[in-house]
Each structure stands twice: as structure tokens, then as C-alpha cells.
């Protein structure tokens, strides 16, 4: 991009209302969606995975933007696995695009997105400051809480998902489709003690172990907050955070990746995969969000019903609070008249 066209674009963007002023307000709809370049990972074969996400400035509006001139990559095919359905607010590390080993320092991969009449681009490059690994991902999603980590959390590996049934399904409008997935995880991360003093000696470590052993059932205690804890949560303590902050714990959730979400209803309602930071939203980034109790057999079951025919891509995400794994199911929904 060079010259007059660039200047024109920047002028348009600079004079648009979504700039500094708009950010102070909590818009429900009508604001742009910014494609976000999150960084890059190098693979053992020399290829590079470029990580993308997005920021939908709207707190309510979800947008469906089909692949095409309004939602495309260049160079290469316009469809490089990006979503067409955009959830509200910040969605990090949504998809990866693999570029070959020959991708150079001066090369770039560009994602263009036009939403609510405003076009933005994300420029994928190999700038060193954006070199990413799992620690960076855990940090940027808020799992490391202001950068507190331990050998255990740094050794965290993503959950694994075993999807039951095929990745392509058919169902009629109004019929419930059962989605089941077995999720396994290494149990990390547990919790991160921000400002924790740490273990200063082996003796201290043993003492801490003793304390843990003495507790009858710490997990049960964690799952049953006292009224005092509940009211404290209700009063919204500790909401000021200088950086992204996320509650940890394994959970599994489905969301619409491609296709109109207003025609899709999940039962039970799914945990949000986007950063809904409003108090007491069902999102790991909200105040005092409680991690759901995982099924004993690791099998997470939901039902989904569609009110309109069409082809939908549903994504299931297993998230241990730090790292994640995704599966996708394509559902062809037929009208009931056939």
C-alpha cells in the first residue's frame, strides 16, 4: 500500500467516529470489527503459523461476514480458515494460518475485514517482538495474571478433544442435535498466586504439602463458596486490573464459527469464549466467574437447535484457562418441508 490511496484511507479512518472518543462508550452495535494479528510461531519444519483474532467493538452485535471481498486474505486464497461469524468484543487466538518456510522478513499476509461499513486490515509479518509461544499465549489471555508464572504452568499443554460423531452432520430445522466431546487435560494450570511469596526452602515446601494433605477435600471447598464469598463476589471486589485477567480452570464450550448465530440455540447456554468483562457475565474474564464442574467421565454434552436452514460451522473449544484446543463440526440444516 503506498501513495494517495493510503493517504485517503488513513484520512477516512482518522476522521471516523470510532476513534478516541468512541472508546469511552460501551456501544451495543454499529461499531467496527478490527482484525488482530496476534503474533507468529515457528514450526520444526521451518514453516510459520500466524495467529489471528479480532476485536469487535460492539458489546452485543454479532456479525456474519461471508468470505469474499469483505472478509478475505491476501496474498493467496481469500479463505484461510478465518471466521465468518464474529462474536462481540475481544476474541484472541481465533485461528492460525500456516505460511511456508520461505516466507521472508519482508513478506506479509494481510486479512481484510469490512464490518459496519468500516474496513480494517491486520498485517501478519515476522516482526521479532511478536514471536509467540505457549507462555506468551497464556500470558496474553490473562492466565498468567500480570506475568506471574511457575514451572508447572509453563509446562502446561493444551487439552485434547475427542469428538463423538462425525465432523459433518445433518439435521432438520427445529430438531435437537446432540454434540458430545470427551476432553482430557493435564490438570494445569491450577491457580496462579499473584504477589505470592513463593516457597523459600524445601522445608517450607514440605509444610505446604502437609497443609494440603490435611485438608479433607480442597476441591469440594473450591466448588462450594461460602455465603461470605458469594456476597463478596456480588459486591464486585477486585475489579480494577491493569492488564488482562482470566479465571483458570478447564471448561468446554460451543460457539458459531460460520453462519448466523441468531438461528442457533445451545442447551445449556454456553460459556462465552469472548472477553465479556462486565460483572457476572458467563465468561472467564468476568468478575468472580466460577469454573463449571467438569463431568466425571470428561464427556461434555450439549444440544443445539437451528431455526433456519443452511450450513453452519460450529466450533468446540476446550480451554484449561491457559491453553486451548478446537474442533469444528459442519452442520447442514434442512428445512422441515423436505
Amino acid at each position: 500500500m503506498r501513495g494517495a490511496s493510503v493517504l485517503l484511507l488513513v484520512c477516512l479512518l482518522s476522521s471516523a467516529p470510532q476513534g478516541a472518543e468512541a472508546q469511552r462508550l460501551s456501544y451495543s452495535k454499529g461499531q467496527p470489527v478490527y482484525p488482530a494479528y496476534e503474533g507468529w510461531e515457528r514450526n520444526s519444519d521451518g514453516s510459520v503459523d500466524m495467529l489471528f483474532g479480532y476485536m469487535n467493538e460492539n458489546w452485543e452485535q454479532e456479525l456474519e461476514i461471508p468470505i469474499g471481498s469483505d472478509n478475505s486474505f491476501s496474498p493467496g486464497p481469500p479463505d484461510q480458515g478465518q471466521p465468518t461469524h464474529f462474536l462481540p468484543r475481544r476474541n484472541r487466538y481465533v485461528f492460525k494460518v500456516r505460511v511456508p518456510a520461505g516466507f521472508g522478513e519482508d513478506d506479509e499476509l494481510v486479512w481484510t475485514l469490512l464490518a459496519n461499513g468500516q474496513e480494517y486490515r491486520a498485517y501478519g509479518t515476522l516482526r521479532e517482538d511478536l514471536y509467540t509461544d505457549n507462555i506468551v499465549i497464556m500470558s496474553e489471555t490473562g492466565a498468567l495474571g500480570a506475568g506471574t508464572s511457575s514451572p508447572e504452568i509453563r509446562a502446561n499443554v493444551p487439552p485434547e478433544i475427542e469428538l463423538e460423531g462425525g465432523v459433518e452432520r445433518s439435521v432438520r430445522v427445529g430438531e435437537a442435535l446432540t454434540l458430545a466431546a470427551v476432553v482430557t487435560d493435564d490438570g494445569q494450570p491450577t491457580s496462579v498466586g499473584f504477589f505470592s511469596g513463593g516457597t523459600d526452602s524445601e522445608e517450607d515446601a514440605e509444610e505446604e504439602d502437609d497443609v494440603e494433605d490435611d485438608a479433607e477435600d480442597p476441591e469440594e471447598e473450591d466448588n462450594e463458596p461460602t455465603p461470605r464469598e458469594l456476597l463478596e463476589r456480588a459486591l464486585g471486589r477486585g475489579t480494577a486490573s491493569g492488564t488482562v485477567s482470566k479465571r483458570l480452570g478447564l471448561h468446554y464450550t460451543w460457539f458459531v464459527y460460520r453462519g448466523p448465530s441468531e438461528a442457533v440455540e445451545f442447551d445449556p447456554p454456553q460459556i462465552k469464549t469472548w472477553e465479556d468483562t462486565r460483572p457476572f457475565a458467563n465468561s472467564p474474564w468476568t468478575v468472580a466467574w466460577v469454573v463449571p464442574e467438569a463431568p466425571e467421565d470428561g464427556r461434555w454434552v450439549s444440544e443445539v437447535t437451528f431455526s433456519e436452514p443452511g450450513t453452519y460451522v460450529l466450533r468446540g473449544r476446550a480451554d484449561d484457562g491457559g491453553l486451548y484446543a478446537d474442533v469444528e463440526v459442519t452442520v447442514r440444516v434442512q428445512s422441515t418441508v423436505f
Partner: protein
Amino acid sequence: MTMHCSTFDRLIPGALAPSAVTGVALVAAALLCVPAALTAQAHISGDHEPHLFAAADFGIDPTGVTFTKDIAPILARSCVNCHRAGGAGPMPLTSYQEVRRYAARIKTKTAIRDRMGAMPPWYVEKDLGIQQYKQDPSLTDVELAMIQAWADNGAPEGDLADLAVELNLPTEDGWRIEPDLIVSSGEFVVEGGSPDWWGEIEAFDVVGLEQDRWVKAVEIREVNDVPTRGSGRQTVGSRWVVHHLIYSTGVPGEHLLERTFWPVHEVGRNPDFFSEERGQLLKAGSQISSQSIHLHSNGRDTRSHLEFGFEFFPEDYEPEYESGRVGLADGQNISIVPNQAGQELHAYDVLEDHIKMVAFEPHLHAPGDRMCLEAIWKQHIETLSCVGYDHNWVRTYSFAENYEPLLPKGTIMHIVGYMSNTEANFNIPDPRNWQGSGNRSVSNMFLDLGISLRLTDEQFVEEMANRREVLDLDVNDHVIGCPLCTAAIPLLPELEEEEGEGEGAAVSEVEASSAEEVLGTWTLPLESPQGAFNMVLEFSAGTDGMLAALVDTPLGDPQTAQNISRSGDALVLGFTLSALGQSLPVTVTLTPAGDSGEVLNAEVDLGGLGTLSGTATQE
């Protein structure tokens, strides 16, 4: 004395990444079309005009400005601490021969004054807010005028007899405090091209401390093998690899809450100065530990360690005040659009105590360009400080003695962050990209890490009386950051003697004999949106014959009702609910349910946060 302590070694794994990519210049003319509302901000990076002055305007003959007479004193005060052999500065400025060749550059860098890239790295804007700070190295208008006249006039040396300052500091010096104790971390290595890393350091002993001491100032210096001209990487943190350190000290085995938590060390940081009324305790036998060091590669393999310098108060020092807390932050919802300067972020907090603000410490990341601090008391909005920001040189701004803001409880604190995602900001890798929150140096944080002290009513009034005396304030004077300073409030102990009552005494308007039906213990089950709990109310007759009440909840210790009154047939009592260091005024309204007198309808007002209803029964 210098103590070397136990080591911690940190080797960042990971493959070497390609060298830095030269940034693609997008549009030099972009700023020409920035909306008018933004151009009105005079201090936006990219729009920032150099601070140029004419010496003649100050009655100075520009041709008479010389190195020996005029420039050397400025360098001695504000430059050579870093610009000396072995210092952090990229070139020594300790002699005329060293300085002369950089005359034009010195003019340019000092004229930036309060934005990233400025030297010295101190970014207080001089046209608003409080101007009195500890260890302020900034240059006055006259000094800038002299530097500019000197550089423009060929940088003359002048008469050696005029040289009255020593520019050659000992190479082992360079501390900006006078440390009584210095301890060093072990060495660690950050590989060039490695990703950002966060983690722990191995705890190490604070060697050489024989007894507990209260600390007056602390300074942390990163000592590394990066050439003083930088690593070669053109973005954030070229000179340093330690981008933050959250650390504490404590004796091994003691409880977490007994440890001392210190101000966060950040990239290129200056010292912290604590208030005379509240030092930080460093215990004998302590270790320094951290679970949160953030390392950012600068593009070359770097060996580094940290030196901690502690300056003590006298041995008999005792603190008077409690530490306070102001939670000014919103790092969750950051959205910074491409190619635009002056993008604002806002965060607020309501003071629940009177405070004395000791320091203002903006913490942003690479896109950070400026932060302003405001105090809103009633309808009055006052800017306390505005400072530029450069994430290579994070500054804390310690207010000078007698200029610390004294703010009453109820004041709304407000910070405004100004973010520059443009080519003018050399710290960011690609301004064409949108940016959000995160812990990486090139992502975004937004908070004030400054220091505040919590004052009681008595301390608050006394501080203001002292301020009136020291600054010789008249009733019509106004002091920035002290809205009640001239309110002429008498010292509270005298007031208490006159009234014969202490603070917080319970006031009951209801005679116990008129409320015999409620005497005893009542259990009130309540259902909050998050779950059920019981409130227990115990009514009794006080020694003065008035009705008294004790309220117990699972949220904390039992509380005495501070006021009891009647409203129609309802009994109204108020108390303060204290939990997690926070206080919430609660009002309970009890109304008879039926004629039996054994059941009361209850409404519990949680200080405007919501109302819970229930039915109380007598035990």
C-alpha cells in the same frame, strides 16, 4: 557496601527468530488529516512541537553562552549520572571534547522535553498540574534557551576558569539514591530472538542486614552487557531486558501477609522515595523473591543481573501512617486503532479514605505516550499531573515534600492514558495493526502504580494544617491537589474534647423500654443473587437505657449498630459492613409481620448496591 548473593540463572529457550524487519513507512502525511479534536491536544506524539526558546527573551546574550559557564552545570545536574564511562547513556558527556560533537543532538533531545525520546528521561509537562517532585532532573525554559543558543552558535567552550562543576564521576557511582545496602541478584541470560517470558526468580538472601530497618528509598538497576548504544533492535526495550519485576521481601517461612511488597521495577526505572510517614520494612534475614519477572528480548543474547539499593531511615524511625491503595486501572478493555495518535483510555476509582499521594507512576506499554492524573472532588475537576511516557524509561514521579496531594475520601480519581499507534512511536513494531491488552511489552497495560498513604480524619486535618503553615496559605489561596487545605478546620482532638464523644459512637433514638418486643436474638435468612446466608440481630438494652443492637453476618466480625431509629412502626438500624478491607454502609428496616410479634419483615439496603428482603424470626 556491595553484597553478592545467591544466584539465579535464567536461560530463555527458543529458536532464534529472524532479525528485525524494517518497518514499512505507511504515510508520513497521515497526521495532516487527524480530526480537529485531536489536534487540539497539544501534547500528542507526532504532533509534539519542540520546546524552543530565544535566549534574548530571558535577557541572555546568545553569543555569550559557553560550555564552561552555562552548559556544564546543566550536564552535571541532569546528564552525567548516565552519560559517563560505564553509565547507561550511549555516550559520555563528561568533557567539552565529548560534548561538543553532540551539541546539535543535545539541543534536539532536550527540546523534546516531555515526550518519548526526550533527554533527560523525565516527562512532566510544565504547563499544568503539580510541578514539585523529588529528584527532578528536568531543564527549565532558561536552560533550554541556553542550550539552544549554545548549539546554534557553534558550541563555544568558553573560559576554563568558569568551569565550576565536576563532570567526571567515579565509575562505580551512578546510584541516584545514597544506598546503605546493595544486594545483587544472580545473573541470567536472555537469548536474542526469544519470545517474552514471565516467571520466577530464585529467592536470594538480603545479605548484610543485621537488624530490621525501615527503608527511605529503593533503587533497582539492571546491569547487562548490552552496548550503551543499544542492542540494535529499533523497537521497545533496546537497552534493557528486564521489563518488570514484581517482588517482595520476607523471612523464609513467614506468612505471605507479613512480607513486604515493593514498588514494581520496570524497564529503565528511576528510584522510589517513600514518605517520611511511611517507609517500607526490610527485615533482617530476609530474602528477595518474585514469581513475576518479565523478560523481553532485545534481539541479542544478553547477560544481565539486577542490583537493589536500599537507603534507610534512622534506626529509631517508626512509621506513622498506614499504606493506602488507589485502584486506578483498566487494562481489560483496551482497544487501540491503527495509525492514530492521541487515543484515550480512562480509569476511575473512588477514594474510601483520605489519602496522601506520595507518587504518581504511569504504567503503559509500547504504545503509551502520555498519562494524566485528575482528582474530582464534588463538581471540581483538577489535573494533578500530566506526563509523557516512553516504555524504555518508565518513571515514577515522587511528589516533593509538602506538595503531595491531600485528597478527601469520596474523591474520584481519574487517569487518562494517551496511546500513540503511529510511526512516530518508535517503540511499537507495526502501527498498521490494531492493538489490545496484554502483558507483552508490545501489548498494552493501563494503570497507575503510584504510592498513597491512608489517613485518619485526625491525620488528614493535621496534614492540611501543616500544609497551610509551611506554604503560608491564606484563606483565598488554592493548592493544587488539596481542595480542603484552606478550609480552616480545627484539629480534631480539640473538637473531640469539646464534644466529649469519640468517632463512631453508636447513637440510638429508641428507648429499650419502648421496644421490648424486639429484645433478644433474631435470625434473618437472606437470599442474595449469589446464594443464601443468615444475618443475626441481637437487640439489648444499653447502659443508658437505649436500644442497642449487634449484627452478625458471615462476612466478618459482629458489628454494633451505629444508629437506631423509628420510622412509623418500623425499626431502622444502620451499621457498617466491613469485608476485605472495604466498608459498606448497610441499613436494615424491620417491620412487624402480623400481630404475633414473633416475625419481622426485613429489608436490607446494601449501601445502594442492592436490597435484600427476608423474614426474621426470634430465637
